[in-house]
């Protein structure tokens, strides 16, 4: 809450915005008319009860799903019809709810795979794998920054759940994205890892926009500047954590039970 309170200098620029975002699955509207603005150098939380449509919003913003209606703009460019891999290349990178690592690659190789494309080393089928060694230094920096140095040569499959999530953040950062979308980055983590990841996110958000889905409200209170509450696919409330947590409807729908 302290962070949110001190962060009231001039409104930073909007890097990702959605207007009237809607997704119908047959007759069921998973997301209804959602307007969302994600700001540079801010951590924005998307919260809400299970089935509120948080992950669907993520899938729509990253174009893994095509919206039924509405527009999405990324840094001034309309990406409503852009394919997901192109969106990623434009600087909007996501993580997944279920940890997304390459299980049978080492930690080092996981990060190097992410570094390959921006460094133009992804289509060369005539070069030996050792050509990738020039990415090792940068990969090691990222591995060290998230505290995975000890596990550098382990297979990703052998890491604990929390460490896998940390590795995922390292691979995401390897792309140096302008906007990071993190889907429940702390789910299933121990207290120690939560602390590490919180400080990584806070650090990362100094120069980037972060939008995260999170259930752990103390984390939200701690690191998020702005909170959007979703319920049944619609926005229920919006504002900083203090405002939102006082909102009567929010307390009823979601937080009342949590804070009781």
């Amino acid at each position: 809450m302290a962070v949110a309170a001190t962060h009231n200098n001039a409104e930073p620029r909007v890097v990702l915005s959605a207007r009237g975002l809607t997704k119908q699955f047959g007759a069921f509207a998973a997301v209804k008319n959602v307007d969302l603005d994600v700001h540079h150098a801010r951590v924005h939380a998307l919260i809400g009860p299970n089935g509120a449509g948080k992950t669907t919003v993520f899938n729509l913003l990253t174009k893994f799903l095509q919206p039924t209606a509405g527009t999405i703009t990324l840094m001034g460019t309309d990406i409503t019809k852009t394919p997901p891999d192109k969106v990623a290349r434009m600087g909007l990178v996501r993580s997944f709810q279920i940890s997304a690592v390459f299980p049978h690659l080492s930690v080092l190789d996981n990060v190097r795979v992410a570094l390959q494309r921006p460094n133009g080393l992804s289509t060369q089928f005539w070069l030996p794998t050792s050509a990738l060694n020039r990415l090792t230094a940068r990969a090691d920096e990222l591995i060290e920054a998230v505290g995975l140095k000890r596990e550098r040569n382990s297979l990703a499959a052998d890491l604990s759940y929390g460490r896998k999530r940390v590795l995922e953040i390292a691979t995401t950062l390897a792309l140096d994205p302008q906007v990071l979308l993190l889907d429940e980055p702390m789910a299933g983590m121990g207290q120690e890892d939560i602390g590490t990841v919180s400080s990584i996110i806070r650090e990362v958000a100094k120069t980037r926009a972060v939008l995260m889905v999170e259930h752990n409200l103390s984390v939200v209170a701690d690191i998020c500047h702005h909170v959007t509450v979703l319920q049944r696919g619609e926005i229920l409330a919006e504002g900083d954590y203090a405002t939102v947590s006082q909102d009567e409807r929010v307390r009823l729908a979601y937080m009342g039970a949590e804070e009781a």
Partner: protein
Amino acid sequence: MSDMTHSSTTTVRAERSATASKTYAAFLILGLVLLIVAPAFFYPIFLMKLLCFALFACAFNLLLGYTGLLSFGHATFFGGAAYFSAHVVKEWGFPPELGVLTGVAGAAVLGLIMGFFAIRRQGIYFAMITLALSQMFFFFCLQAEFTKGEDGIQSVPRGHLFGFIDLNSSTNMYYFVLAVFVIGLVIIWRFINSPFGMILRSIRENEQRAISLGYSVARYKLGAFVMSAALAGLAGGTKALVFQFATLTDVAWQMSGEVILMTLLGGIGTLIGPIFGAGLVVTLQNYLATSQFPVTIITGIVFMVCVLVFRRGIIGEFYASRLGRKLGFEHRR
């Protein structure tokens, strides 16, 4: 405590891969020596047939084992290349090396077309599209003028390699085929162990994540498809010169099935597994051809036994066995 476990597994793995590369090198040299002296003990035509099918299976495995795509239309590339090579050598008087390369280029173009339509779908749909397109190609070959219909292109001259090595001598022809086989394997090995191969691996491991890292997955799959088709064409074009004919057998769907069988028998995703699979199938066919037993029933039974007992394939099981692990191999699937 966890620190120690981590560092020890790491060193074990490093030592293992060091032993593995040593044993690999030893087996490689042994295998090559055996192949070089083999014509002294076996009928050369049989050996050449074996090498052609082994290369075909390895090319197929590049797609199934290293990209995770099950194609049911690889006969198109194998048999198509055989027709192209046979045609340009017989009718246009191309030298053998150019003839084989024409087959490779033709197969690559066919691969580009088939891949373009097929990679948009996954699993069974992918397999069905490749099967449908290869059936269309089969009927094209049945009707087209240059393939000579049911007769096929017969009595294709082997010619002189680079203008001075007479390939009508079966010893010369054998070493030519062996060279083609080794070149094919080197290309596959390099392809798998390259920056491109690394992306293919990551796509196979977690496609969604690869997309979210900004990779146009379809393009990488198409690249692997075309490479696999071109190498299958290398095998097919060479086979046309060995047997001096190209017929409908090589473009029929049974051929697509046979290469799947060879690859599964040997071990998907192992570099040398398909070679053993092809060796087993070709040897069985060869020895049973003269006996009373129907070949397909025997290969069918062998296949069933293998699927039930060695699910990783012969070489895959060997890698996973105690001896295999002691030698430093690791089977990853």
